[in-house]
């Protein structure tokens, strides 16, 4: 045995409580310890994923009570894949911010790294847990860290963005509790596998109401269309690396939760069509909004919302190819959007307004950063030979297999729209004259390494997609197999 899933939660919590004490001994430890924790957890997650791919899912029991009495964590190929992705991105975000936050005081630095670590831990907890109330607790941990990180730069705009986020997040928590309450009152259990096993005994009306409450609550974090009012503001006002953490980690966790409820727990008919419809609406509205943005980070945020819509559409096909395409999209989006946020925040580092016009002619002053931004822009649009091409292609083939011609057309049109607004930025970087008033800020060495690693991954997946498709196929098979999930959790004996 290489380790157990509970360490993904226990170790960061222990570290979070320990860091204020360590900071009193040596101030630099505040920055170093989160990185050590994330490195260890990344190694652990890779080891566990290798174990799970061969031997089947690990179900961990907490406090010695088997499900449905106690809480359990499930590390399957599907959740394991997401955990590896999140810990990896978390480590990169940490490395990027290590010197990025150099100039702040000791106390804000302590709080920044604490909140960042808890943001990652909460998201990993959402993915790992097998209990709906426990998921609520992890969602609280994630969202409270996210509110704090959004308001990290003090000022009117970030306070407003954070307040919006707090309001919507509180409504989300209320809906989540209402949904949990209905399920508990009807089935007398909170364990996901147990609920999935017995949900057919629940009245359909209750099922529909609780499902809608779950999707409304999680849709706020997952940036589904009518609920994503907080996202552009929060992305624009939060520090650059935090935008990457939101797009790559928090949103992925919320999408995971929606998918888990749809595929494993509820047996409602029509939910898949529902996912396709809300995904399509989100995609269309977000992409048309992105093209009208004047600020770089808001544009990236809307593009992120659009990509999440596409992920939901792909999950909505309900076929193995659809799930595979959705997971591939999630992986690519996490990597490419992080690169865009990382390089984009250096392009507009010293400008006050962070407008797209202010990246004019940056290629001469920040050649590598500009090149990486262009690489990310081409990759997310889906140009070959970059990573994004394969995920868009797999969405198209999945749509073709399900005979959804309309969606194929939609994906193509949306790609053109994306091409327009990303190329507009790249065009400005390479072919416009720089305004004299803006002084470019050179990336630190950490940030450079992180961005180069992400760029290299995009190229590797682009030229050799087989490097990841094997794991993705196993992950999608593990999500589709509802019976196996229930069996693994409920077959444990005291």
């Amino acid at each position, binding site marked *: 045995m290489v380790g*157990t899933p*509970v360490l993904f*939660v*226990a170790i960061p*919590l*222990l570290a*979070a*409580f*320990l860091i*204020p*004490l360590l900071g*009193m001994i040596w101030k630099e430890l505040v920055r170093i310890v989160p990185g050590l924790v994330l490195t260890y957890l990344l190694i652990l997650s890779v080891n566990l994923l290798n174990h799970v791919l061969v031997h089947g899912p690990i179900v*961990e*029991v*907490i*406090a*010695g*009570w088997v499900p*449905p*009495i*106690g*809480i359990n964590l499930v590390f399957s190929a599907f959740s394991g894949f997401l955990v590896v992705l999140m810990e990896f991105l978390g480590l990169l975000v940490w490395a990027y911010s290590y010197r990025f936050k150099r100039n702040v*005081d000791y*106390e*804000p630095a302590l*709080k*920044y790294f*604490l*909140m960042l670590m*808890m943001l990652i831990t909460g998201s990993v*907890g959402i993915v790992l847990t097998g209990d709906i*109330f*426990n998921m609520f*607790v*992890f969602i*609280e*941990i994630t969202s*409270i*860290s996210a*509110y*704090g990180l959004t*308001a*990290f730069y*003090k000022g009117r705009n970030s306070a407003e963005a*954070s307040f919006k986020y707090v309001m919507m997040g509180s409504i989300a928590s209320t809906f989540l509790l*209402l949904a949990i*309450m*209905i399920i*508990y*009152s*009807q*089935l*007398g*259990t*909170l364990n996901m596998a147990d609920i999935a096993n*017995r949900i057919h*005994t629940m009245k359909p*009306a*209750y099922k529909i*109401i609780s499902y809608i409450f779950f999707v409304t609550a999680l849709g706020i974090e997952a940036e589904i269309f009518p609920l994503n009012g907080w996202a552009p503001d929060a992305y624009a006002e939060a520090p650059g690396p935090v935008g990457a953490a939101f797009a790559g980690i928090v949103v992925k966790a919320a999408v995971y939760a929606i998918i888990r409820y749809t595929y494993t727990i509820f047996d409602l008919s029509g939910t898949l069509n529902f996912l396709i419809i809300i995904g399509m609406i989100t995609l269309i509205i977000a992409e048309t909004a992105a093209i009208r943005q004047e600020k770089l980070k808001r544009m990236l945020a809307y593009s992120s919302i659009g990509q999440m819509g596409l992920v939901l559409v792909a999950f909505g096909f309900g076929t193995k190819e659809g799930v595979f395409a959705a997971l591939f999209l999630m992986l690519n989006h996490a990597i490419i959007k992080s690169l865009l946020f990382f390089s984009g925040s250096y392009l507009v580092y010293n400008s006050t307004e962070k407008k797209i016009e202010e990246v004019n002619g940056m290629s001469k002053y920040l050649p590598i950063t500009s090149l990486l931004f262009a690489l990310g822009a081409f990759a997310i649009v889906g140009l070959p030979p970059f990573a994004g091409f394969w995920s868009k292609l797999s969405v198209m083939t999945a749509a073709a297999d399900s005979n959804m011609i309309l969606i194929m057309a939609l994906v193509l049109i949306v790609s053109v729209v994306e091409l327009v607004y990303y190329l507009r930025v790249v065009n400005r970087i390479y072919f416009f004259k720089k305004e004299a008033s803006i002084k470019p800020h050179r990336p630190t060495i950490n940030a450079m390494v992180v961005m180069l690693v992400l760029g290299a991954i995009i190229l590797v997946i682009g030229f050799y997609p087989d490097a990841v498709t094997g794991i993705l196929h196993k992950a999608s098979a593990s999500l589709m197999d509802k019976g196996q999930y229930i069996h693994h959790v409920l077959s444990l004996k005291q």
Partner: protein
Amino acid sequence: MKKFLVILLLAVLGYYIADTYFDIGFGQPHFVKSAAPVKDIYLAKTQNPLKVSNAVTSIVVNFRGFDTLGEVTVLFLAVTVLGSVLYKKRHHVGERSVLFNSSSIVTSGSKLLFPAIILLGAYVFIHGHLSPGGGFQGGVIIATGFLLMLLAYENYSVSHTALSIVESLAGITFAGVGLLGFMHGGTFLQNFLPSGVMNNLFSGGVIPIIYIAVGFKVGAELTGVIYTVLHEKGENNG
């Protein structure tokens, strides 16, 4: 027209939600309709292997102790976020604003009450497994004691470093007990101490230890919140 449609939509939604929740029947003796509800198992196991007299405690700290660890973290994070939002550089921190000094009745009365409040708080969290109290309640009572002192005395101060040390140590104790359970029993937060005789102070396995840690943590955190909010003032009006 638009407003009318919105109200109509909300009314329809509200009707269905209210209908559902009235139908569930909260407060009825058997509102959980399922054949094998978890609550019966909880009630049975509280008595026998755990030997805890308060079922709420056994659920909160033992069966669902992982959630409680999460909630403790939520509180810790909330305090951290508040501190980060209200953070000002040391020399920008002004004095507390005092509109009028408290009367001598309040100052001398609070001196008498303060130890009693702390004692009551400690009693509540130490007896968490025997009574309907617990770490969260006891911690809040302790924080109210500090609030009284801060209100009564203009220049009463609490050491930030001490608060943060208590908070950290209490959190480490909770997570550490969980890891000890992992080493001794095989699962995280497992009870590794003998459960003792029911209704004795030394019973309930690790529950009292966890509740004492939670009590210290909540007390220190809420005191920190009160202190931060009272003292953070801008340079202009301080």
